[in-house]
């Protein structure tokens, strides 16, 4: 099938959608699909056209043109996109963004429309789904909308009830890493949190909780991996809590080094205070047979099964978080069992081949008319 895959950014930009795209698209290309990516130019020096593992990447200066409010350049760029569509003749257009570049998709599709599949990767902003928004028009004009968690679909249908009959859930998938899991360290336990160090991720709650954990397990360490605006505050908080030596900040970790990072941990915490659209961190941890303690936030409750693959705690509750960590550190057999159960679930429910299979079906479903 000829698929035009639309995203605001593509590698080397890094983020959830970029990582997902970089895995999904070469896999689809290997199955014989012809994939063309339309993406924005986010930095100088990248070529307008390139190949990425059998996938054609075409970059346009969408953001720059829009920011300039220049109608001439706007027309020129819409014309370029329209010509690309004519050349590619996509059978399905797969939108992976509700960012401003969608304007170019909408304005270049009037006479040569292919049906649109829209994947929702993050929660909708309520004020942006009105009929007089780009967001709203993109959603309403898509033939089918796929959400990457049930939580996102509930959110979508709350804002736009008509989406009940035009939407589905296909989870992200992930290949088991080449590095096999090793037994969890239990003697000097390591509690790991990783991701962007921003307030939404709730790592401050983990630091607060760790003060209580340390009273029971003085040799335990909290490792926080990642970078972000909240790092100075987190470092200050750790010092204030008397945990300067117990909390280690290891900085950014490249995706291929994440399995080794998880292998060095006893359990993984995901204390997010915002509704995570999916919870990739929890999935990565499960693939390495680590129990996960996560907040009941968005899609995390779908990736972590409470009492089976880990423990769920209320959002914004360092007390519950501390209790859960202490419980698993005290009962390593239960923690091992949860880790193993998480690994099985990750392979079955969130397997990579399943994800690619389901996207193939989504494309066909969209091409065949969705529910129409």
């Amino acid at each position, binding site marked *: 099938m000829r698929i035009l895959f639309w995203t605001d950014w593509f590698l080397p*930009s890094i983020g959830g959608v970029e990582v997902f795209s970089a895995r999904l698209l070469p896999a689809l290309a290997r199955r014989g699909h012809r994939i063309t990516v339309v993406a924005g130019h986010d930095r100088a020096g990248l070529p307008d056209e390139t190949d990425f593992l059998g996938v054609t990447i075409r970059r346009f200066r969408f953001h720059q043109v*829009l920011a300039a409010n220049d109608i001439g350049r706007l027309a020129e760029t819409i014309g370029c996109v329209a010509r690309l569509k004519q050349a590619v003749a996509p059978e399905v257009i797969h939108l992976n963004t509700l960012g*401003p570049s969608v304007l170019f998709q909408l304005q270049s599709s009037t006479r040569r429309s292919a049906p649109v599949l829209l994947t929702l990767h993050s929660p909708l902003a309520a004020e942006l789904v009105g009929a007089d928004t780009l967001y709203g028009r993109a959603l309403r004009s898509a033939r089918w909308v796929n959400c990457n968690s049930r939580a996102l679909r509930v959110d979508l249908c709350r804002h736009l009830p008509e989406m009940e009959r035009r939407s589905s859930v296909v989870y992200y998938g992930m290949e088991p890493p080449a590095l096999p899991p090793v037994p969890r360290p239990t003697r000097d336990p390591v509690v790991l949190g990783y991701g962007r160090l921003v307030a939404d991720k709730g790592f401050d709650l983990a630091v607060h909780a760790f003060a209580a954990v340390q009273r029971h397990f003085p040799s335990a360490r909290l490792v926080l991996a990642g970078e972000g605006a909240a790092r100075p505050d987190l470092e200050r908080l750790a010092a204030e809590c008397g945990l300067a030596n117990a909390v280690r900040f290891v900085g950014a970790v490249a995706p291929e080094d994440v399995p080794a990072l998880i292998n060095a941990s006893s359990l993984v915490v995901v204390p997010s205070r915002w509704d995570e659209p999916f919870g990739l961190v929890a999935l990565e941890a499960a693939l390495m047979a680590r129990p996960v303690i996560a907040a009941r936030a968005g899609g995390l409750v779908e990736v972590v099964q409470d009492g089976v693959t880990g423990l769920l705690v209320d959002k914004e509750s360092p007390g519950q978080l501390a209790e859960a960590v202490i419980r698993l550190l005290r009962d390593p057999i239960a923690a091992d069992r949860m880790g193993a159960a998480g690994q099985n679930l990750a392979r079955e429910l969130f397997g990579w081949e399943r994800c690619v299979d389901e996207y193939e079906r989504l494309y066909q479903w969209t091409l065949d008319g969705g529910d129409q």
Partner: protein
Amino acid sequence: MTELQGCFTPNREDVAAKVIDGELMVIRLSDGTYYSMDDVGTRVWELIDGGHDLLAVIRNIATSYAVAVEQVASDVRALVQELLAEGLILPAGDSGRPRVTEAPTGEPAPYQSPQLHIYRDMGNLLALDPPTPGIDDLLFKEGSPE
């Protein structure tokens, strides 16, 4: 309320407009709001811009699309009202003899009530942070194996 009539003109001080592939795109420059209109709306805009008064616009559309003039009158008045409310056009005095506005070549698309698509969120969307740069050189060289 008095029924709309007379001539109008694009608010050229605050508006950039262009027909792109048969669709009109308009940017309200003062706040970066974007607008688009499809076939019929685009034709209405072109006729207004060409100095035709409202009655002439309605007659032209009704003839071009072979649609009852009453329906076109109601649709066009609603659209003009919206364009005025958005500040995209202004009332104008009699501009004299209207410029000839070229009719689109070929068969017109089937008539659909003109609709002004408004993208009020464009400014907000553009203000969102760009993607985080940083680890690209470390991780990825385009075209290289994973």
